[in-house]
């Protein structure tokens, strides 16, 4: 059935095969140690994207930003605000100016959102194309030091139950 070479040495293990078996075992042991340490957060690169601070109009459910890779970050989990108000917002402050292309929000947000970016100390509203499935693509790449996501004053539904926010930057720009 099997047409392959068995590489069997008549019942006795050669030195080469013994070394290979030991090497395979060490790879598995090494990977297990790596896996265990990883689940302890040893390689947590949360700061690499450059989020300095996350603030909001409420303090419920705030969690740290996360990063894995260097061109995106996701934030938080299950930020549910019991009594939503029109003034509610989320504010992300970066360590230095960042270039952003789009934002994807997983969860429930007010029916109309507005985005404001801070650059050179000045706030300005960021226009975006029609959102689709929580994905807001900015009309052009924006450079910001702070980004605010707020409920529009025209929004009827104000409920916030954000599971995750993902920032998409320009990959080449992020490498610089």
């Amino acid at each position, binding site marked *: *059935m*099997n*047409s*392959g*070479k*068995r*590489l*069997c*040495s008549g*019942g*006795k*293990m050669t030195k080469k*095969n013994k070394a*290979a*078996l030991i090497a*395979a*075992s060490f*790879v*598995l042991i090494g*990977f*297990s140690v*790596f*896996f265990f340490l*990883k*689940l*302890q*957060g040893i*390689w*947590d690169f949360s700061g690499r994207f450059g989020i300095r601070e996350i603030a909001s109009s409420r303090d419920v459910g705030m969690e740290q930003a*996360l990063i*894995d*890779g260097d061109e*995106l970050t*996701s934030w938080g*989990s299950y930020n549910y605000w019991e009594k939503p108000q029109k003034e509610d917002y989320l504010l992300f402050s970066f360590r230095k100016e960042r270039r952003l292309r789009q934002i*994807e929000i*997983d969860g429930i947000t007010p029916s109309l959102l507005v985005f404001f970016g801070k650059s050179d100390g000045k706030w300005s509203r960021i226009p975006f194309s029609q959102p689709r*499935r929580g994905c807001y693509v900015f009309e052009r790449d924006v450079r910001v030091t702070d980004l605010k996501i707020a409920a529009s004053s025209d929004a009827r539904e104000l409920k916030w139950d954000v*599971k*995750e926010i*993902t920032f998409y930057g320009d*990959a*080449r720009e992020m*490498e610089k």
Partner: protein
Amino acid sequence: MVTQERWKNKYDRRLFLFLASAAAVMLIYEIFGVEHFIGYYDGELYYSYLIEYLLKGNWTYFEKYPIGTALAELPFFLAAHALTLIVDPAAADGYSALYDGAVGISGIFYYVLGTVFLYRALKLLFGEKIALGINVLVFLGTALPLYATKYASFSHIKTYALSAAFLYLTLLIGRGREGFRTHFLLGLLLGWIVIIRNINVFFVLFYLCYGITDPKYRREHFRRVFSARRLLPNILGGLTMVLPQMILWKIATGHFICYSYEGESFSYLTHPKIFEVLFSDAKGLLIFMPILLFCFLGLFCLRQADGGRGTAGIVLIVLLELYTTAAWWCWWLGGVYGMRSFIDIFPFLAVSGGAFWLWLRERLKELRNSDGGWYAVCLVFFVSAAAACCFLNVAFLKGMQEGTVSETFATWWQLQQALRQVFLF
């Protein structure tokens, strides 16, 4: 007669029982655990071709994805459409319950189809026992069942089935199966794989490189591969799939060939995100499906399979998959659980997994003859490692289903929590 003989083989019977159980489990999960199938990110766009072309007659419709996935869903769509027209004609909009269910069923169908071909291919290479064992491990140790159910609308489970068939057919050709139909089918399969995901054209390397490491076989192989007797049906088969795509592109864009991923590129060609693709806690292939580590180890044991004839092709395919994924601007491939592009090459990874299994079995036999104590230690160690990998996979999948583990980007603390929940509950 042949069927009766096949049925007498106990491993074939076990495969049938395994597939029947797996399909039943997946069906139960689809009924009780999945809200909808159409509407998951890319999956909705693949499916949209069926609505636009067949229900709206809009042949100028254009999406960045090619039409291969929609083609794979077509029979299920047509069955759902016919049933809906009988039961409730007003709901024949392409999105009602029967259409949605049909997409879910298609995922299970392609899983079963792919697994049958993969079993046959692995049986040729390693015998029935390992062939069955690998398929069971792939089911328990990877997210493949998730891609056959919740993400059935995606392209990956279809490519899994087609690449398993492509692998099997190449092995048969390597064993002397010739004829117009065989080579036409090979071209057709590759053409279909290409119009599902254009980048997967490199799967052809398995066929082209099959045997190049064997000097005796090499010359004969290349002479045959490039003979008119094979090339003609190969090209005809390939064009049967690719030509409709080119015509549709021409209608929609004015060009027979177009780069549909406008604005997206391989931004990391010079510094690919290989570490992130393999080990990030957001998406890492070996973090979410650690059992694949055995397959990567198996790349060094491929001489065990078919005298090493498939080594070059499989190694190249795995490396190219890794590189193209890691070089793409969106290396994490969006908001779906795990590193999904690798599902496409699972049949090739399964061969290297089988090679590792065979190699390990030989080493353990040798060890048993020389040192019974170490034999027992090694046996327990490797079996425990495989079992632990399956356990991790199930724990993370459970965590994802319950919302503990994020589908888009998981974190180390979410993975840790998923494990804790399994231990505690």
